[in-house]
């Protein structure tokens, strides 16, 4: 029979052999573990990023890490950072917090990265926070605007770059009050901390909606779900609709609205997260007529604006180092974070440590050059990055021009609490020559 004495003894032998095998496979890792700062050698600095390369949220955002890598390759070809070449380890999390946790484990324990850069998604960054904090790994320029990440007590190693969704909602609320007074506004939002952050911002400035339409992350792929959004908008009588969702959600909403014959009847206002025209056009060509004329928020210049010195330089880098990729705002976001990272690494000195990197951001980060139109707010007491948005009208060719007058950018700045929404002009540091930081 099966539970025979000799079988049992055999079973134990197998068990012991298995454990021994594991132990042997484990020992070399201990023997060769580096003594110096993780991820830094005499010639390299290793960084890591988690993004959705696959799955429902991937379109568009899957270009961010390759834009960043292209910029790093450009810097590496021009001498690197203090003689060290930057390596970027890219991991796919499929926009799932569970996978984000597991690949972040790998980045920190297996790849032993020096820092994380541009990790994407609110829920994803929340899921990895505990571990990232425990290990003291700097997490720079997270690709999310969740206002909570600026909480330096809860997330001591995390640096926000994007203005928060709370700020964005306040800015949109301020803009609606300014230019759309008396209109009936509907809101579509992602039903997690991303959208909930925005709801709080709208509530703060007293924006009222005729319909609030939450959607579960991922459900935008279901046509019946999208059908319900559109029928809710129609039955609410809304003439203006705000979308706080990922690109695939914006594309689905615009495509669905076009099919329902809403072209010309509803003014669309798109949150910056899901407003990249190139991605939307590619995903749902039927969305194009509605995209044309939609108003979108942004804190970076339009990706099609070749008059902008940063955009022009980044486009050149994209052509040479990111072969085959169309330059869009996702690539721009990646390169912009790359440029800030290089400045942070330079500021951390000839022998960078994690502590020095964060100290450098605290003391000199607010003076770094970047393509962003709003000032950067990093200091010893704040990890808030940009703090404002401009509103631009999208056109079919993917361009975005300021809504306020002829080519004049107007910035709506605010904070993630009770501060007023202030309109101001744009000031930003000039780009370092050839886009290569010399700080």
């Amino acid at each position, binding site marked *: 029979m099966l539970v025979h004495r000799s079988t049992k003894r055999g079973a134990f032998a197998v068990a012991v052999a298995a454990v021994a095998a594991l132990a042997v496979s484990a020992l070399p890792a201990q023997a060769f573990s580096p003594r110096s700062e993780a991820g830094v050698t005499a010639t390299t600095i290793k960084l890591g990023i988690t993004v959705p390369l696959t799955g429902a949220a991937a379109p568009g955002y899957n270009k961010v890490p390759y834009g960043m890598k292209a910029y790093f390759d450009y810097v590496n070809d021009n001498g690197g950072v203090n003689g060290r070449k930057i390596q970027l380890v890219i991991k796919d999390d499929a926009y799932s917090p569970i996978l984000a946790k597991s690949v972040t484990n790998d980045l920190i324990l297996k790849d032993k990265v020096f820092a994380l850069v541009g990790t994407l998604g609110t829920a994803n960054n929340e899921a990895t926070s*505990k571990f990232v904090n425990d290990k003291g790994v700097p997490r720079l320029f997270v690709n999310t605007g969740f206002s909570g990440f600026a909480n330096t007590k809860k997330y001591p190693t995390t640096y926000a770059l994007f203005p928060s969704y709370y700020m964005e909602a306040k800015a949109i609320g301020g803009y609606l009050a300014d230019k759309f007074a008396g209109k009936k506004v509907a809101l579509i939002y992602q039903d997690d901390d991303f959208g909930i952050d925005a709801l709080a911002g709208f509530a703060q400035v007293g924006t009222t909606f005729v319909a609030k339409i939450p959607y579960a992350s991922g459900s935008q792929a279901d046509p019946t779900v999208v059908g319900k959004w559109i029928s809710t908008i129609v039955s609410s009588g809304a003439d203006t609709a705000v979308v706080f969702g990922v690109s695939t959600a914006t594309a689905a909403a615009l495509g669905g609205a076009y099919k329902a014959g809403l072209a010309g009847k509803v003014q669309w206002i798109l949150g910056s997260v899901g407003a990249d025209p190139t991605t939307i056009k590619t995903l749902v060509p039927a969305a194009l007529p509605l995209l044309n004329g939609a108003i979108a928020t942004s804190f970076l210049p339009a990706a099609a604006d070749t008059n902008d010195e940063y955009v022009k330089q980044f486009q050149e880098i994209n052509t040479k180092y990111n072969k085959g990729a169309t330059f869009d705002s996702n690539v721009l976001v990646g390169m912009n974070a790359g440029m800030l990272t290089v400045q942070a690494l330079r500021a951390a000195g000839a022998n960078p440590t994690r502590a020095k990197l964060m100290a450098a951001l605290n003391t000199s980060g607010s003076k770094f050059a970047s393509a962003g139109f709003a000032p950067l707010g990093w200091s010893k007491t704040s990890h808030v990055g940009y703090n404002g948005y401009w509103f631009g009208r999208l056109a079919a060719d993917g361009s975005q021009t300021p809504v306020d007058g002829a080519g004049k950018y107007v910035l709506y700045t605010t904070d993630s609490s009770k501060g007023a929404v202030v309109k101001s002009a744009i000031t930003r540091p000039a780009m370092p020559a050839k886009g290569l930081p010399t700080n």
Partner: protein
Amino acid sequence: MRKSKALSALTFLAIGLFLLGLSNFVDELRVYQGAQIAVYVIAISSIILLTGYSGQISLGHGALMAIGGYAAVLSYTYWHLPVLLAFTVGALAAALGGFILGMAAARLSGPYLAGTTLALAVGLPSLANQFHILGGEGGLSFDIGEAPKWIANKTGGDFTQYKWFFWVSTVCALVTIWFIKNLLQSRFGRTWRAVRGNPSAAALSGINIGRSKVLAFTVSSALAGLAGALLAMLLGLVAPMAFTLTLSFTLVTGAVLAGVTNLAGSIVGAVVLVVIPEITDVVATHLGGSEKITANLPGLITSVLLILTVIFAPNGPKLHIRKKVHN
């Protein structure tokens, strides 16, 4: 008999002490993988108990793990239960789920049972999107905290949270195997084997076949629930994506690789499941492949291993090797 029991108890204790001691000397990555292995050991042995000994098949153990994971996290978060009690609640909740499923299962067999449990694996985790309390796709966070001071101080050094996870899951795995091993040698184990071997003969000997099958399903589910709660602990959260169809299939693969009638083989199966991604990582790095290859290669290798095992060693590699030696 009593002497051999004492001996095997000592062996378990020795293995346990050896493993816990080992965690002081290895890289944190290996500690984490060790914890993963322990969780897989519990999950796989729950399948071995069900399939190998009571002769029922389940492709839905991922769903039972989800019940255990969510129940543990909810009871920990809302009732503020101590961790061990939360794990127990997880196991009991899954046992209840398994009991209900087992009632249906006892009336089904073969492909019908496989289909029913498969449907559960597909459908159940997505329930999280229907009820706000379950946290949707983003899930619920689960932080059991650090090791108690009296343990951390005794071992000295840096007692990381992952090491604590390793300790907790290793102890759970050893206790589980000890429990199943004894259960299988008891009246219940003999009954299950009799039912699996020949239901008609078992019924004629006075065994209530239905009751025996439901009991096996319930016990197996409780263990799957424990594994689910431990998995939630390891990941730091529960979310539908933690309990995918892939997980259910992976566990069955692990059980087949272990040899479905070989309890100790669950360790081999678990090690293989954790080691395969390691190997593919090395292969992909050497081939200079993209991250897409690294992400998909483990699935391919596991599937190929499954097919090869079923064709060449349907009773598990160990029995196969033993047979060869005896012939």
